């Protein structure tokens, strides 16, 4: 079972190597302000005893209204392409993306669900066991932001409380400009704080801030996975939250910038 899922074959590409914890999109709505992995995670990685925590992969589920661009988001992330043609997702799409985080090979399983109401029955069967839940909405359509609440509720129902990291991702940023964008983002940040999610605004078309989001999503998934695998999962997660305030004025972001992969060129 394990061997079939273990990432085999060629080494991961350079832009999929994450050394340190990626930076947030906005400090107003993020799950971790710190610039580094949680101490326990780093320690486990250094000890090299990550093998004992089971499969080194995280499950990511993408939910949200139809036509907000979930599939485009995933395609930009995994294949770095953007297809202008809209094609409704039928059933669920599936991608595996391999990473190397803090020296540990690691895979992300992305389940891209259908947004259409009539396909919801089948999509909801895939929510279980998700380490990362991405609720996507269209920045130019305030309705879709409202609906994320319902989507999240549905997804959380199938998961153990507190076991998943939540991301609120606004799409189609390229369609908005200046004030409208600021307005939409402000509302999104408010909601993100309410549902305790990390907020990102991206554009799959231009690829803007796409990669940062990808890496942080992966890093969060990884952290979550590692922490929940260790016995003191709850306690350590608590410390993550506690540490938030302290990390705010941490090392300057420039230091991070250089470490972050930039070869995708789309950002």
């Amino acid at each position, binding site marked *: 079972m*394990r061997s079939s*899922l273990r990432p085999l074959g060629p080494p991961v590409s350079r832009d999929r190597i994450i050394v340190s914890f990626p930076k947030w999109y906005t400090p107003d709505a993020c799950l971790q302000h710190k610039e580094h992995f949680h101490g326990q995670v780093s320690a486990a990685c250094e000890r090299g005893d990550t093998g004992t925590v089971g499969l080194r992969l995280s499950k990511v589920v993408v939910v949200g209204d139809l036509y907000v661009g979930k599939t485009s988001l995933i395609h930009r992330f995994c294949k770095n392409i953007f297809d202008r043609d809209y094609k409704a997702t039928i059933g669920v799409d599936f991608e595996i993306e391999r990473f190397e985080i803090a020296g540990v090979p690691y895979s992300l*399983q992305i389940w891209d669900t259908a947004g259409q109401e009539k396909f*919801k029955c089948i999509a909801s*069967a895939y929510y279980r066991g998700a380490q990362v839940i991405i609720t996507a909405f269209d920045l130019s359509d305030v309705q879709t932001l409202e609906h994320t609440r319902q989507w999240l509720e549905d997804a959380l129902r199938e998961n153990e409380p507190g076991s998943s990291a939540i991301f609120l991702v606004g799409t189609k940023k390229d369609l908005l400009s200046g004030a409208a964008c600021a307005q939409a983002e402000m509302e999104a940040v408010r909601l993100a704080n309410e549902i305790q999610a990390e907020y990102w605004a991206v554009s799959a078309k231009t690829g803007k801030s796409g990669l940062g989001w990808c890496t942080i999503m992966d890093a969060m998934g990884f952290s979550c996975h590692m922490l929940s695998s260790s016995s003191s999962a709850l306690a350590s997660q608590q410390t993550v939250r506690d540490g938030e305030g302290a990390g705010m004025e941490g090392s300057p972001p420039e230091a991070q910038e250089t470490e972050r992969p930039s070869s995708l060129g789309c950002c």
Partner: protein
Amino acid sequence: MADLESPQKLSGVPPPSERVGGSRCSEISTELIRSLTELQELEAVYERLCGEEKVVERELDALLEQQNTIESKMVSLHRMGPNLQLIEGDAKQLAGMITFTCNLAENVSSKVRQLDLAKNRLYQAIQRADDILDLKFCMDGVQTALRNEDYEQAAAHIHRYLCLDKSVIELSRQGKEGSMIDANLKLLQEAEQRLKAIVTEKFAIATKEGDLPQVERFFKIFPLLGLHEEGLSKFSEYLCKQVASKAEENLLLVLGTDMSDRRAAVIFADTLTLLFEGIARIVETHQPIVETYYGPGRLYTLIKYLQVECDRQVEKVVDKFIKQRDYHQQFRHVQNNLMRNSLTEKIEPRELDPILTEVTLMNARSELYLRFLRKRVSSDFEVGDSMASEEVKQEHQKCLDKLLNNCLLSCTMQELIGVYITMEEYFMRETVNKAVALDSYEKGQLTSSMVDDVFYIVKKCIGRALSSSSIDCLCAMINLATTELESDFRDVLCNKLRMGFPATTLQDIQRGVTSAVNIMHSSLQQGKFDTKGIESTDEAKLSFLVTLNNVEVCSENISTLKKTLESDCTKLFSQGIGGEQAQAKFDSCLSDLAAVSNKFRDLLQEGLTELNSTAVKPQVQPWINTFLSVSHNIEEEEFNDYEANDPWVQQFILNLEQQMAEFKASLSPVIYDSLTSLMTSLVAVELEKVVLKSTFNRLGGLQFDKELRSLIAYLTTVTTWTIRDKFARLSQMATILNLERVTEILDYWGANSGPLTWRLTPAEVRQVLALRIDFRSEDIKRLRL
């Protein structure tokens, strides 16, 4: 060598040494000599001059020696003079000849070029003449053919005309016979238009009459007139009509079907199958015609038209299905029931069975049909695109994907499957609940009925999802089954284990029957007949043990289920179902399912620990504590007496045996093994405690050693693996208690330990030594360990 050097010298490039001499020579000029006044200086100069003279003489000699050779060379050079003149003459002649030849060749080739040009022009002229003749011939032919209603011939003529080079025709019109050709062309164009009209009209009539040979006849004519698209669209129109009429007929048959019919339960699936088969047959029969007359790569167009009709018919069938089977109503009902605290009356899951089967069958048929289309069109494209660029190929593939994935059939089926998933989930959940509620245990069995029932149900549900041939459906069902097993069903078992194993006293076990009788007596005396007390504890005990077995079997069943599914799906994947990610999706969901097996294993461990601490430990502890009441500070006489009347260990073994026998009968071998392992560990730990509370003398130590040996011997027989390791510390304690003198320990300690690995720390060794009342504490303290 000398020959070579001599001209050098002659030509006045003297070697450096002579140059030095030469320059001196010039230095010692007559003026210099004249200016000299001292004799000494004059002598010196003279001497130098003499020396130089000698050198010059030598050189002169050498040059003179060379004279002969140089002269002979000069002679031979003179002789060569005339030859050179001859060569020069020859070369000039040769150059002349070459120039001549060159000119000649140029002349010849220019003539050839002219000839070639002439030939080409001739060919063109012939071609044009041919074309003009053809044109005339075509015109005449078309007229005759049309008059004779030989449309194939007429179309062939038109085709020939259409294939002619337009510029040729244009040129021909400018010729002398321009006016005539013009007229001919006009006639031809008129004929073309007329033929088109006729063919379209005749085709329409044939279509209306359903005259297949005529339809095919005119269908073949369209491409000759350059009307590929029109031909295909008209033809598919005809085919669609056929499909529609057949489908309508079938649908009417369905509505008239008796509910008692053998296939009544899957009648809609059958109708869809007929529809798909019909279309497949059409593709099969007409593909060769299309390929022959329209060329490869055209099947896609035909299918595109046909799929529209297929979608229309599928919609009708599915609508009827939904209406007749109350599909949506049942779905809403199920949805209501699935909400935990719903008040609506529950649907009997068994009633859903036929409809679920039918839906999966419908989906399986559609998948098969879509797969058939994909294969056909792909291979047709492959032939057609064999020379095309990669881009065109991809574009075609994309079109095909879009057509098949986004057609109404796919969407409708996906919707049906979505509803199916919810209903199947309900079916599974309800049936599992029922199996749990109807759980029964038969004496002599290790497990109760619900485990087998639940796994039968889960297997059935996943199997049904699998039979839909939809990977998304299968994976969704595996996920739901995983959730069901992991939370709901595991909770059931977990709760049963939480009730615990009722702690009973030693007497209950030993005199179960008598105590039952006693209780009966007492209750009879009180005027009540109540055996519930004893029965319910027995029941609770049994229930706990059965649940343990159940948990273990669950864990195993999940692994088996995973393996079965894996092998079932390899066949499916080899057919290329569900696209490239299908296998990865399936593997991911399956590994989640397999992980549940471990959760059951964890639960089993929890249960065993619970059993060990609530049932085994309270029993074993008092038995072990009786060890304290047996003195190990004994004399020879008592020692011998112990030999005959064992004071402790035999009874202890007997008790253990009795207790474990109860478990052995009602636990699976694997669990029993784990339990005995836990029990032996417990015995070892507890025994160690009491030993440390006792005192010994030499014979007492010997007695303990004997007791320990028989205990280990017994435990070895009941466990499958070696227990020596668990008793290592106790054995070492026995060894210490058996020593003659304190210092004897050093024979076993440190460098003398040999193969023995001490499990006791030096402090513990001292502690054990101190248990021997006949050892002096100073001796023990003095020991160097």
